[in-house]
């Protein structure tokens, strides 16, 4: 039955937590009560990317985007837009500093500048219906891979596309597949493939969104990989905290089995392959390949030395090919549209050697001090400026950009001078940061870089598995030194000590968690050394963040005794008669800064 119109309600985790299930149900009730049930269909999609504005929905084919909806808006929406055909302006999205709302999705800057490859189906298919996926050419690539291509041809195609691992390391996927296939053939054993959906970086939700919005893309990618590598068994190692993603994935796997796209004799050929879903053990380090495989085997998720590669001896000592969710999701399009199409996106020339550039797109979770936060997909090589100011809409409240942290907790912070740097694997690494799995945290001028470094080191100290000494003890000692500096107790020589510890950790740690852990310190030392020096030598926090180093005072000349600060202060540190300048008692002040925000006359000073 053809519907006149579709209402695509986001059912990603962000929107669900803002009540999109209730919203969808209310919509269906309202539509039915208006007798439109035969004409209009409500579809629940995966994350549409603009989570900060959730719950969101799109009305198709009009392509009108609504956001920040409440169930109380449903009646208006149905009556006005769906019944009378008059889009509701007050429920639409207004970009910051724009004069009027923008009705069409494709005209909203946040969406307009993105390039959707991995997220091609986002907001367009119901992730729980395989037919939706197939209708958008899904499983065509798998059919081609099993019926037209030999394993070697598939691997050649992936190599030529220049696809590099999206899980962080950026290792060329085709090369990894080839090594794994060779190792298995050489030893005469059956290889295993694994999808890494552990996504432990705080604030990152790329992989979750991909699985939630388009699980079949991952399944199809894995099936193609299995065919190329020669595997019959696959695992998805998925984070424990992702119940929706897990549920959708399980449903999708069942549907694929029903359709003969998984299991024995796929598409009537002799190719057998199936996938099991394994729940993660709940530690950041379990995303690391050797730890993940230990965890898959039911052991404690701790890394081991990698002098023997997991593509040769991995899960249960079988050759094991591990790829990230996004890496797998890229595979079907490369096979159906060809390596050349994929390589045409991105930076560098990968036709000879995948190490020579970064092709394709990359999904980022854009968060922090930026107007439009959410999930974005951009071509590799785009500049940081285009992402932060173009898609992200710049820094809120007109503040100045200070730094952007990329690559997850063990990534680095890049300053404004790097805004025009292309975002690709090698540029980021050269600049002292990394691609990581695609976290991107924007910071404004009210951020103290020493404090930021301390924050990430504290996170990593928590997450270190504690197996090897340089990581466990090195992080602890680094954290002690950083804490000392932010508390104004830094000593001359601390900066050099941090650098020395960082260098040794990079050299000596057992796994990449430890060896990349110094990045936050090393990159902030590289670009914001003066801030460290100010903390240590002048006992001053230039950004006014480190509490031990700031004092609040009230400018007696400016204060007009409005009493706003007195109400704001939770400890009663400010006293004074209305209409007379107020006093601040330092011994009670906990330096929360509430008075500063409350004062309309800028009479509260921070130094």
């Amino acid at each position, binding site marked *: 039955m053809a519907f006149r119109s579709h209402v695509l309600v986001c059912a990603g985790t962000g929107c669900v937590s803002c009540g999109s299930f209730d919203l969808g149900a209310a919509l269906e009730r309202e539509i039915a009560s208006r007798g439109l049930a035969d004409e209009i269909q409500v579809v629940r999609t995966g994350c549409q990317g603009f989570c900060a504005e959730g719950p969101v929905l799109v009305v198709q084919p009009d392509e009108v985007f609504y956001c920040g909806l409440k169930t109380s808006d449903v009646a208006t929406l149905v009556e006005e837009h769906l019944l009378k055909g008059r889009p509701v302006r007050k429920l639409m999205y207004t970009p910051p500093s724009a004069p009027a709302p923008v009705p069409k999705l494709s005209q909203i800057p946040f969406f307009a500048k993105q390039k959707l490859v991995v997220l091609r189906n986002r907001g367009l298919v119901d992730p729980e219906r395989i037919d939706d996926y197939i209708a958008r050419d899904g499983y065509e690539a798998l059919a081609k891979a099993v019926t037209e291509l030999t394993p070697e041809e598939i691997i050649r195609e992936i190599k030529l596309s220049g696809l590099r691992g999206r899980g962080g390391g950026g290792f060329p996927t085709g090369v990894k597949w080839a090594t794994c296939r060779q190792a298995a053939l050489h030893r005469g054993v059956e290889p295993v493939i694994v999808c890494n959906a552990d996504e432990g970086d705080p604030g990152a939700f790329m992989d979750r969104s991909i699985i939630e919005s388009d699980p079949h893309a991952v399944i199809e990618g894995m099936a193609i990989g299995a065919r190329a590598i020669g595997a019959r068994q696959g695992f998805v190692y998925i984070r424990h905290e992702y119940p929706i993603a897990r549920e959708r994935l399980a449903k999708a796997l069942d549907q694929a089995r029903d359709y003969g796209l998984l299991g024995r004799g796929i598409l009537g050929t002799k190719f057998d392959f199936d996938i099991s879903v394994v729940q993660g053990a709940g530690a950041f380090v379990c995303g690391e390949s050797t730890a993940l495989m230990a965890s898959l085997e039911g052991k404690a998720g701790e890394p*081991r030395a990698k*002098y023997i590669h997991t593509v040769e001896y991995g899960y249960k000592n079988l050759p094991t090919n591990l790829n990230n969710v996004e890496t797998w999701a890229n595979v079907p399009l490369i096979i159906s549209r060809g390596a050349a199409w994929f390589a045409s996106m991105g930076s560098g020339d990968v036709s000879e050697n995948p190490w020579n550039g970064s092709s394709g797109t990359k999904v980022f979770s854009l968060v922090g001090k930026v107007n439009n936060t959410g999930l974005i997909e951009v071509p590799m090589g785009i500049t940081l400026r285009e992402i932060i100011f173009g898609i992200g809409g710049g820094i809120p409240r007109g503040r100045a950009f200070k730094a952007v942290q990329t690559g997850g907790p063990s990534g680095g912070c890049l300053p404004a001078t790097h805004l025009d740097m292309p975002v690709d694997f090698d540029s980021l690494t050269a600049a002292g940061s990394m691609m990581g799995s695609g976290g991107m945290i924007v910071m404004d001028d009210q951020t103290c870089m020493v404090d930021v470094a301390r924050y990430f080191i504290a996170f990593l*100290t928590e997450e270190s*598995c504690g*197996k090897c000494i*340089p990581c466990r*003890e090195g992080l602890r000692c680094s954290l002690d030194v950083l804490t000392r500096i932010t508390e104004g107790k830094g000593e001359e020589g601390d900066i050099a000590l941090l650098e020395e510890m960082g260098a040794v950790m990079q*050299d000596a740690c057992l796994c990449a968690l430890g060896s990349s852990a110094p990045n936050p310190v090393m990159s902030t030392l590289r670009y914001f050394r003066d801030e460290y020096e100010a903390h240590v030598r002048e006992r001053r926090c230039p950004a006014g963040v480190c509490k031990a180093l700031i004092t609040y005072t009230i400018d007696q000349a400016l204060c007009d005794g409005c009493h706003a600060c007195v109400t704001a202060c939770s400890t009663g540190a400010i006293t004074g008669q209305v209409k007379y300048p107020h006093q601040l008692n330092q011994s009670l002040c906990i330096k929360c800064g509430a008075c500063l925000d409350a004062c309309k006359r800028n009479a509260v000073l921070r130094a």
Partner: protein
Amino acid sequence: MKLVKVTIDGIRTEAEDRTPLVQVAQKIGVKIPTLCHHPLVEPYGVCRICTVEVHMRGRVRLVTACNYPVTDGIEVFTQTDRVRRTRKLILEWLLARCGHVPLLNTLAAEYGITEPRFGRGDDTCILCGLCVRVCSDVVGAHALGFFNRGTTRYVGTPYDEPSDRCIACGACVEVCPTGCITMDDEVEQIRGELPLGPMTAIYIPTMQAVPHQPVIDYDSCIHFKTDACRVCAAVCEAKAIDHGQQDRREEIQVGSIIVATGFQPVDPQKVPQYGFGRYPNVVTALQVEHMVNASGPTNGQVLLKDGSRPQSVGIIHCVGSRDKNTHEYCSRVCCMYSLKLAHLVHERSGAKVYNFYIDMRSAGKGYEEFYNHLLEEGCEFIRGRVAEVSDWAVTPAEQGKLVIRVEDTLAGLVRRIPVDMVVLSTGLEAREDADEVRRLFNMSCSSEGWFLERHPKLAPVSTFTDGVFIAGCAQGPKDIPDTVAQAGAAAAEALALIDTGQVELEAYTAWIDEERCSGCQICVPLCPFSAIEFSREKKVSTLNEALCKGCGTCVAACPSHAAQQHHFTDAQIMTEIEGVLVR
């Protein structure tokens, strides 16, 4: 096996492809420090102290030598600035955690650390995991594990409770590089028994053991508890160890037998007033013998249970001999071995030694002289049977000592002598199973259980069974020279038999007609020479003509007339009778 070329600190060498680097270095004498490595467990690579620099095809990187597999053409440097900087900082980090572990401080000194920049912590465990790995991978007990993560990680047992999987083998204590694991008191007690037993589960029973080969003690071998370990098999280059071996019975056909089954020492607890088993420092002479053995558990030292040296030692003679309550006979050897021990104990520990004797029996060549020598050495001899050993102190000098109460029959007074250690010179008695052995060979026993010779003077090593001879303490208490002499005699007798090759038997032996034998087995116990056996297979009795003396008991007893005797068959006797009657 593929050989590859490796250069370490400029020294060229060859090694099997993929050998761990640390092994290659060790072979050519290049020292690389290690903390988490032990040859018995798989490399773990977590302390990172073994970091070295590897140059390969223009690429330089730091690797850990304990688990890095060597490949062709690598060049290794173990002392570059970068390596030393890494090791130094690792040591400082370790000291920040475990500041007072001697091993770490020694290493730190090598890297010029005097004042570690992060201070000194009070922990002792560096989390190298050797204990955990040895317990699960080698011992197979799986009693230890890691708990928590990151900086709060620690080694322990599940729920921090004493683990019932721990078999108290002490392997973790052995491998811990920092010495931070110790044995619990309770467990220590169990091990306290060990110094007087075999030191390990695999050992050569005695220095003179024949064959001179180690045996495995089933009860203390870890393999039979956890199915793991097999460390001995791993280190045995001859691949001689087979844990799957089973006991088996073997039948050997022989022409003569020498019974030399020996004696057993009297159980000292049969003389309860001497406190054996109650006071840890009351020991038997055999245990002291074990201690004074240079290759024994204490390396030849005489030690008290707490590991210290005794100041004074009392040796009580005739424990279980010359006593109505135990054995009335004299065990013959105790006087002399007590003198020997008195001499050795004094020599090894410098302790004052008292001998408590009833009569000094030092008959034999050179024995009396040895006794005199001891008198000169300052050994005290007190004549009188000891009444009691106790820890009941009356005077301050007796505090914490064992007090020996004795009537000194020479001085005519009752004395209390405080000592640190009491040695019981236990007598010899016939083995528990002597009676079974006696029956097996159809020998006789004295009332004390010693096997009887056919004639004390004319046939001292023969028995009433032809071809069975006796030697040594099985026949009666005697010392080593006497035993050896007697054994020689028994061997000569046996050889004489063997040498004839054939034994001539009297012709009038009995025989059993198998057709007639009903298998009632009446004859079997009746035969005084144990010549008849019942064959389970054929279900009839069979007769060993070599043992049969032709007494005819079985012939008379057999209800089915199956047992018959050559020259004395029924027919022959009847004919003889007829002959007599005809005349």
